[in-house]
């Protein structure tokens, strides 16, 4: 049997199951209207078909996956553009630009907004469209420069504040927790999770870890000698971080799969 015939048989089987499911689901519909029942029966079956098509990628690339992928891309691009139109054009631009358009789209016209400035992005937007004209296409770089400049300007201070200054000041932790002298410390030393020793150890690990981690990121100094040792400890700390975050995330990912399988067995096959 060639792979082509196999594919044909498979497609026929899938089509058959699809049809049976459609009929069964339409029959068990809740609505009074026959049209709604048949429609919802189709949609539920189609959703199941798409779910299984995506999962089939795990085995290997195949026409079902290709179909689901292509449809997905088309639908989502359309979805996004509709959202962009209704939320940005109608939601943000129209109320600032024109009263009659606002009335047409039933959005409240904003009288006090800065109406002239709203044309700045319009101009830049139009300039962007010059790309479609080969002769003056280079003009569109002006808009791109505007966008990149805005991104650079906004992010410079944002990262300075939220990441640099606050992370440095968060490293401001006591190195001697509950310190009551060396004698007391030695007397009570233990590896109990709630003990003083572990609390102190944690803070030292954070302190040394941040230091060494930063040393690892030094670009302009050769990682040799004491600096090299620190940088090596730094990469170890980073590896612990990666391993830990990976392990912690696994559970969340499994629950996504639980959700999908529950959909297949519960909502579709009704065996749960």
């Amino acid at each position, binding site marked *: 049997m060639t792979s082509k015939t196999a594919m044909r048989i498979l497609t026929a089987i899938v089509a058959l199951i699809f049809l049976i499911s459609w009929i069964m689901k339409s029959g068990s519909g809740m609505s009074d209207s026959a049209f709604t029942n048949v429609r919802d029966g189709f949609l539920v079956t189609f959703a199941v078909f798409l779910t299984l098509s995506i999962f089939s990628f*795990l*085995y290997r690339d195949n026409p079902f996956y290709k179909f689901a992928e292509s449809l997905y891309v088309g639908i989502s691009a359309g979805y996004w553009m509709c959202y962009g139109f209704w939320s940005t054009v109608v939601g943000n631009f129209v109320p600032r630009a024109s009263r009659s358009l606002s009335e047409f789209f039933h959005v409240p016209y904003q009288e006090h907004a800065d109406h002239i400035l709203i044309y700045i992005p319009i101009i830049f937007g139009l300039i962007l469209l010059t790309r479609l004209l080969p002769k003056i296409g280079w003009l569109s770089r002006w808009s791109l420069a505007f966008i990149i400049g805005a991104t650079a300007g906004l992010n410079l201070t944002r990262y300075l504040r939220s990441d640099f200054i606050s992370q440095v000041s968060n490293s401001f932790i006591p190195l001697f927790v509950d310190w009551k002298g060396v004698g007391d410390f030695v007397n009570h030393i233990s590896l109990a*999770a*709630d003990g003083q020793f572990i*609390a102190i150890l944690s803070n030292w690990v954070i302190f040394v870890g941040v230091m060494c981690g930063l040393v690892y990121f030094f670009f302009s100094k050769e990682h040799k000698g004491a600096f090299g040792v620190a940088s090596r400890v730094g990469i170890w700390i980073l590896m612990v971080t990666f391993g830990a975050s990976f392990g*912690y995330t*696994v*559970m*969340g990912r*499994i*629950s996504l*799969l*639980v959700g999908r*399988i*529950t959909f297949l*067995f519960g909502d579709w096959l009704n*065996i*749960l």
Partner: protein
Amino acid sequence: MGLIISAVVIGGGLLWILYLSIKGQDVDRRIVYLFVGATVALAIIFRLEFGEVATPIVKSVFDKIENLPAGSKIVLSYDFDPAMAPEVNPMANAFIRHILEKKHRLFFMSLWATGQSLLSVSLNDVLKPEFPDAKYGVDYCNLGYKAGNEGVLNVVITNFRKMFPSDANGNSLDSLPMFKDVESLKDMDLLISVGGGKPGVKEWVLFAGDPGKIATAGGSAAVSTPLLYPYWPRQLIGLLGGTKGAAEYEAELIKTHPRFKDKGMPALRMMGPQTMAHVVIIAFIVIGNVAYFRSRRKGKQS
């Protein structure tokens, strides 16, 4: 029955793969996929539940409630909204069951406006049907929601009646017998906040537990749990993190108080497939390393 089938299928499969790996064959990624998929599917179909064992961070909360003398005063605050509810509501319900079973006095409140309605759902679905003898105002009371976020805690740490002239139903606090010897949060034996945002467990620690030196415990959605770990065990006596923490608490509750066994423990049920999948992944990591060391030794020999 389902457990046996699943154990035989998955365990047998894993042993076979281990055997193949030791012999030096590489496992195709599709086999790994198959195992993960099959494990989760079997666990869902057979509704497998595992006796979770409480980790110390959860056990300490359980033991605290278990060992307090009957009649102790415990605050349970609903600091969450419907979006977080699937994860944290099971915790709150488990706390209610445990606290009332041990005949403690339970004070409900909420720092989230949306927490109040979830609180009344719990009262109607869990507390009233399962504890018909519990008397309002004697065994439990509902203070309801007060606006002001952590500011509320700033006040009730010195005086309840200032912030709550009356409870959620309009009774003055002095008319409730259980408030007879309660002046402020400091008279409480344990504070529990169930939440996942701000204000939540962290605010309870910083604005109530720490300044008042009151034992504080919490339950939190999985995402925000790592941010709370630093407070344990010195500022928080214990913490339930996500569905996993809730399941551990439910397991401990069933173990000590078997009468709750048939009450449907949602977190335990949700944990079944996840635990199975974890075990399979751990097994695969072990198998991978066995195979690796095997092949390295062979490489050295030849």
